[in-house]
């Protein structure tokens, strides 16, 4: 049987995406500790190419202490992306304030979605506790929303590798702020930066330890650069995602982390 095999979540590649200029390679992989306990993979991700120039992605990490963490993470990520898609269909923000507002509204909507689910299931919001990272990529802006841990790393046109969004200052690694906490909207961070982004990575905290240098909180170039470099040449996104998932489930990674982990890479096709 597959008792020791991690549960891997790959999402089917949207045919529209394959026809667009966007490249997405991503996976959520169950942590070794969750295989042992056993707990399902409580990480989730979602994304959507709005059009040839705007892309939205979300990563959520359900808190192990929450009863419906898995559902919470999946719903939060999916509803965040759906909300942004819906809003952009009506209007595209023109300035920084507009994008930040969109990200804030998105978090409120994702939280409301969990609230509705909790009511439906006669549960409480806390049962769906999850972190949430949102990234919207446009030709001129990099927009992020962030509550809890995980990071967003951007590879810029000028060659720089930057931490575009990082966890709030929680002292202890086992304490995190969820989307479902009472004062969430004042604790979450929302940013819109004028940035020329070549490629983007969204990571849950399970991948953080192997890719971000803890001493100065900078992205580890030998981790990100080879991945970003290969993105534009990817022909089969599903196969590439499978390859990524195998890497994330490998001993090389699992020796350093036993948590669920998500890595979502977003780039553009080579022209």
């Amino acid at each position, binding site marked *: 049987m597959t008792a020791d095999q991690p549960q891997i979540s790959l999402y089917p590649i949207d045919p529209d995406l394959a026809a667009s200029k966007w490249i997405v390679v991503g996976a959520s992989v169950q942590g070794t500790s969750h295989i042992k306990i056993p707990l399902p993979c409580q990480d989730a991700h979602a994304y959507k190419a709005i059009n040839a120039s705007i892309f939205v992605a979300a990563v959520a990490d359900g808190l192990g202490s929450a009863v419906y963490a898995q559902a919470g993470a999946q719903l939060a990520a999916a509803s965040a992306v759906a909300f942004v898609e819906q809003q952009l269909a009506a209007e595209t923000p023109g300035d920084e304030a507009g994008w930040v507002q969109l990200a804030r509204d998105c978090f409120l909507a994702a939280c409301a979605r969990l609230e509705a689910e909790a009511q439906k299931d006669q549960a409480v919001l806390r049962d769906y506790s999850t972190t949430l990272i949102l990234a919207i990529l446009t030709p001129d802006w990099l927009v992020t929303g962030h509550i809890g841990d995980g990071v967003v790393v951007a590879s810029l046109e000028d060659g720089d590798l930057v931490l575009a969004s990082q966890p709030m200052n929680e002292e202890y690694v086992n*304490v995190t702020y969820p989307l479902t906490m009472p004062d969430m909207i004042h604790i979450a961070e929302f940013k819109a930066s004028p940035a020329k982004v070549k490629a983007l990575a969204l990571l849950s905290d399970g991948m953080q*330890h192997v890719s*971000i240098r803890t*001493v100065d909180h900078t992205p580890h170039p030998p981790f990100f650069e080879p*991945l970003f470099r290969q993105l534009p040449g990817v022909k089969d996104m599903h196969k590439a995602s499978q390859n990524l998932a195998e890497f994330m489930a490998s001993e090389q990674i699992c020796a350093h982390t036993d948590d669920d982990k998500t890595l979502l890479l977003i780039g553009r096709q080579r022209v």
Partner: protein
Amino acid sequence: MSDESPDFDAKVASVAENPEQRCPCILLLDVSGSMDGAPINQLNAGLHTFRDSIRKNELASMRVEVAILTFGKVVELKQDFITVDQFNPPLLSARGQTPMGAAINLALDKLEERKQIYKQAGISYFRPWVFLITDGEPTDEWHSAATRIQAMEERKGVTFFVVGVDKANLTTLAQIAPKNRPPVKLNGLDFASMFIWLSSSLGKVSDSKIGAQVALPPTSDWTAITA
């Protein structure tokens, strides 16, 4: 599988060699004269059980850092912070009074020191644990220490457990322990079961980020039923 070479190979990425995350745990042990004989012998044996039990969990034995502070004739740091894979329990002997207040204060000072070391080295860390075991009650001034550790517990700066052995004064200990986690009474001298519980709890805590509320295993295997 196709035989063409893949256009994406994630294995070319190399991971950041970060120091392992740490989960500090201070054992605050009563070695006053009344612990002499069977209690101290069982406690010594229990420390070995603790080490062996954590070592079964490879990641936990690299993450959990144990320090041992004893209070009896003197307050003494018997073992400075060390990861469990390197830990060899000291042999404790029992003598003297119960200067618990001074011991709690020293434990908190040591924790602050350790956290500074983690920060300088870029090591991320879990919320520390302080695990106090006593068969009596403090013989020194303890109110200020109790206030200090309870305040820390309230702002989630520490997880503090108090275990009473034999004739321990649970009424006084209840004023020292955090309000939401009253002292528990050890079942006889079953330190072994208690330390197995502690190792599996620390294993769970150090396992991963599992949110602010960690569901610990039940303590019923090693606690006495009190009225």
